[in-house]
């Protein structure tokens, strides 16, 4: 039981526990705050996987961007003063069927993952990945990179256009 293993299981516990809170909590604000811990746990897994740039990106974009956006959405679409802040669970029957189905899917997925003989190449050396990512983005993936930037521009313009009050 070395330090790596302990930290992995700690991160796994944080991810799964807070994700369960996200999908079961009655209060939508609690769900949003549990999502914060899920994202932090995933960033921790990235660090364990030698993906330093992705870990920082995860914290900057998911926590600094998407989570703030989601909390803004929660606050703008619920009546803060009232008690009407619940996250809207469907009926008991749907809940039962959905939990059985997703548990079944998880069992199947875990079985497949455990049984498959994955190709395991040479393990990636642990070195800073920013240099290589920059090289790849501006050589092999240049077209996709440019398309992604155009997509982000369109998303900004479209979101501002859609959310504007029309009168």
């Amino acid at each position, binding site marked *: 039981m070395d330090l790596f*293993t302990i930290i*992995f299981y700690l991160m*796994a516990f944080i*991810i*799964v526990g807070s*994700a369960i809170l*996200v*999908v079961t909590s009655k209060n*939508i604000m609690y769900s*949003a705050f549990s*999502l914060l811990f*899920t*994202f932090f746990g*995933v960033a921790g*897994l*990235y660090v364990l*996987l*030698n*993906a330093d*740039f*992705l870990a920082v990106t995860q914290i900057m974009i*998911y926590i600094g*961007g*998407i989570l703030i*956006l*989601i909390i803004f*959405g929660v606050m*703008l*679409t619920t009546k803060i003063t009232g008690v009407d802040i619940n*996250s*809207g*669970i*469907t009926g008991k029957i749907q*809940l039962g069927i959905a*939990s059985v189905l997703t548990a079944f899917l*998880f069992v199947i*997925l875990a079985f497949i*993952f*455990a049984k498959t003989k*994955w*190709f*395991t*190449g*040479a*393990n*990636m050396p642990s070195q800073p*990945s920013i240099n290589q*990512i920059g090289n*790849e983005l501006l050589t092999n*993936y240049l077209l996709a990179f440019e398309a*992604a930037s155009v*997509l*982000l521009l*369109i*998303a900004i313009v479209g*979101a*501002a256009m*859609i*959310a504007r*009050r029309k009168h």
Partner: protein
Amino acid sequence: MGIGLTHYLVISAMLFCLGLFGIITRKNAIMVLMGLELVLNSANINFVAFAKYGGLNIQGHVAAIFVIILADAEATVALAIVLNIYQNFHHVNVDEVDKLKD
């Protein structure tokens, strides 16, 4: 037995199933979005795990970056649409939104 590829894959499968459960069982549009973020995160964990153990190397990181970019664009537009729905219907329950325009 140390931590291997399978451990990460099982964690990501768990996250995927929880996200799917959230998408199925919630009526609030923002909760559906949160479930979607969980699913996208689980896909990212898979990419990065294969980058380290499966010989995918730096290509896996680049794929994960593109997934993050798409998730950001999707969340922005989806929340704009949710705000618009709230202005028209005064709630954001996705199962009761059945008119494009009133």
